[in-house]
């Protein structure tokens, strides 16, 4: 490490609170840039005010002017959305233009102004009334349209207040956008060439900001909390979208280090880009499927172009979070259909609800447990409350008409559970067939192998399932009985533990014997170091975070399955994870 960098780090440690803030890194990349504080108008901030006597005329003129600005802005946004985000997003914005011009919207605002309210108050009142109409509707999708109404009203207020500072359209040089949170309409307006990073106060891994940042390739740190208040407009920032660290006013050495990291990342990215539309094939012709893990249908958009040949794991629990009741069949159907369509006929493995344990859903009223990972979760909850599973299966089967959906059941520990699931599945399918609901002719169903018991009994399961997908994250923790979040025992947690490798081999062998396939959707599948071993074992499908796709594809192309088998033979004879790592490290260093 150069001396200057070392000094800088030491100083940073001393004065950490002032010079660096930490959030959640959700979209990778190192960026240096000036902060652009973005403070959008909020409808709730508009005070309730009457217009001065005799000023109604003037208020009406202001209103009309704001509406015209708004129309022009929306039309421009529609044009941009068509180019950058596709017709679907453009249609939503076009809908906003119609709302703005709607006889049941704008004329009502005019009436409120004529009744003496200020233009801003009138907009707020009518927007809230109209949004409430949507919020009271039966259909969950329609209820969510209230957000579109609010978006229109907010836009109108913004023009009324003539808020110039902090508008996204003002950005004319490369900046890092700093905001409380970003809305869908904000992200349409962004110029990717000018916005190199996001920093937001709120948000998590699956927030809208995180998803958009990933799909646009903008580095992002979300959930930075009160730290955001330390950032002033125009301040120099060095942001790291991997670690979530943001340096405020970095010195020259820190800036140089960040720029160097970005250059290195971009060189790597260019090199990897060549693998996006290339299949992953070993030198001797073995071709595994390379798939992505997603948490929402929005993440599936554009995946094929980014190198994914399938979705190997769609975690449906996010659909169930942050709500007051389980999502209805229609809401779920739309989400699954959207994911299936985004993948354009490629496989989409959708995991049934995996909640309980550490993932709480208040409306399910699952009591806290002493040992949640060994407790009431996933399929155990779903078989106990079949109405949850039946709704989900109906939505999944209906969506199967729109792509290639496969259904994966998590936390299966024994054949009885699987058989109960299958009989429920058959029943639901029967109902839908009787009602002439369109469905795919065949929908594969399989299990997520994450409990050692299922891995040990893989030969028996192989007779009854269509596929296996090995969830290494849980399989490792259950096999070595160590929680990787517990620092004291995290050292024991290692997917290169020989016992884990034997279980993985057992599952793959069992599937090959029966002519079915085995995938892997834990973090092991996205680790280039593990790839030669998994190819040697004959894994059929690798599913990983989209960010790892290209590196894994490149690695597969460097391999020869024959050589990997020989390596795997040696590894199967080893005693400790350390030996396995060393052997894989040495093997990797010889690849060119």
């Amino acid at each position, binding site marked *: 490490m150069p001396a200057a960098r070392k000094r800088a780090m030491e100083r940073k440690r001393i004065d950490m609170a002032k010079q660096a803030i930490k959030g959640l890194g959700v979209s990778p990349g190192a960026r240096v840039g000036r902060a652009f504080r973005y403070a959008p108008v909020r409808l709730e901030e508009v005070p309730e005010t009457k217009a001065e006597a005799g000023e109604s005329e003037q208020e009406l003129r202001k209103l009309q002017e704001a509406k015209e600005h708004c129309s022009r802005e929306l039309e421009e946004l529609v044009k941009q959305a068509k180019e950058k985000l596709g017709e679907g997003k453009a*249609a*939503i914005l*076009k*809908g906003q233009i*119609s*709302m703005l011009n*709607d*006889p*049941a*919207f704008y004329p009502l605002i005019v009436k409120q102004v004529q009744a003496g309210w200020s233009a801003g108050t009138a907009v707020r009142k009518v927007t809230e009334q*109209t949004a409430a*109409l*949507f919020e009271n*509707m*039966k*259909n969950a*999708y*329609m209820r969510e*349209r209230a957000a*579109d*109404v609010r978006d229109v009203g907010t836009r109108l207020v913004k023009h009324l207040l003539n808020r110039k500072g902090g508008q996204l359209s003002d950005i004319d040089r490369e900046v890092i956008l700093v905001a409380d949170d970003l809305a869908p309409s904000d992200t349409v307006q962004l110029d990717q060439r000018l916005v190199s990073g996001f920093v937001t106060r709120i948000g998590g891994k699956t927030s809208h900001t995180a998803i958009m940042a990933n799909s646009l390739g903008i580095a992002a740190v979300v959930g930075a909390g009160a730290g955001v208040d330390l950032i002033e407009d125009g301040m120099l920032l060095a942001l790291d979208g991997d670690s979530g660290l943001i340096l405020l006013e970095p010195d020259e050495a820190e800036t140089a280090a960040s720029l160097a990291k970005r250059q290195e990342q971009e060189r790597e990215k260019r090199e990897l880009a060549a693998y996006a539309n290339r299949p992953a094939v070993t030198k001797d012709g073995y071709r595994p499927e390379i798939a992505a893990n997603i948490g929402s249908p929005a993440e599936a958009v554009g995946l094929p172009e980014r190198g994914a040949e399938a979705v190997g794991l769609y975690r449906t629990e996010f659909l169930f979070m942050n709500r007051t009741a389980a999502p209805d069949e*229609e809401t779920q159907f739309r989400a699954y259909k959207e994911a299936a369509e985004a993948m354009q006929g490629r496989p989409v493995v959708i995991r049934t609800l995996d909640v309980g344990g550490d993932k709480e859903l208040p409306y399910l009223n699952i009591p806290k447990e002493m040992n949640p990972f060994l407790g009431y979760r996933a399929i155990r909850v779903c078989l106990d409350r079949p109405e949850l599973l039946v709704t989900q299966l109906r939505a999944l089967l209906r969506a199967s008409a729109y792509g290639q959906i496969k259904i994966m059941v998590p936390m299966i520990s024994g054949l009885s559970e699987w058989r109960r699931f299958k009989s429920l599945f058959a029943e639901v399918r029967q109902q839908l067939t009787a009602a002439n609901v*369109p469905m795919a002719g065949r929908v594969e169903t399989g299990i997520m192998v994450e409990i050692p018991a299922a891995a040990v009994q893989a030969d028996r399961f192989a007779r009854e399932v269509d596929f296996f997908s090995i969830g290494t994250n849980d399989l490792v923790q259950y096999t070595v009985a160590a929680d990787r979040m517990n620092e004291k025992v995290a050292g024991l947690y290692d997917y290169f533990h020989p016992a884990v490798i034997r279980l993985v081999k057992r599952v793959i062998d069992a599937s090959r014997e029966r002519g079915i396939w085995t995938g892997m959707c834990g973090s092991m599948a996205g680790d280039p170091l593990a790839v030669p071993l998994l190819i040697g074992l004959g894994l059929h499908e690798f599913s990983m975070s989209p960010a790892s796709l290209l590196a894994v594809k490149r690695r597969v192309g460097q391999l020869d399955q024959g050589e990997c088998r020989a390596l795997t033979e040696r590894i199967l004879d080893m005693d400790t994870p350390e030996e396995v790592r060393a052997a894989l490290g040495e093997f990797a260093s010889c690849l060119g």
Partner: protein
Amino acid sequence: MFQKLTTIRNKDGFHIRPAQLFVEKAAGYQATIKLITEEPSAEIDGKSILGLMTLGLEKGKTLLIQAEGPDEEAAVHDLADLVESGFGES
């Protein structure tokens, strides 16, 4: 005045895309356009996307399209065809 009874064919009725298509077409006619439904019992302006969306019409429900103006007949036929086509959805 010219009118015609139609049935909603697409699964989710007037969500944002069909509603947008409908009002876009309706706005192209001079005639005033009224939509009347029995269930829920309502009468709305056919050029209002908010009205259409908040009707909450679903597949199988009937909708009476009424137009009044110089191009009333063309408007009613055109809009009825759009509804009957299911807006290009299943």
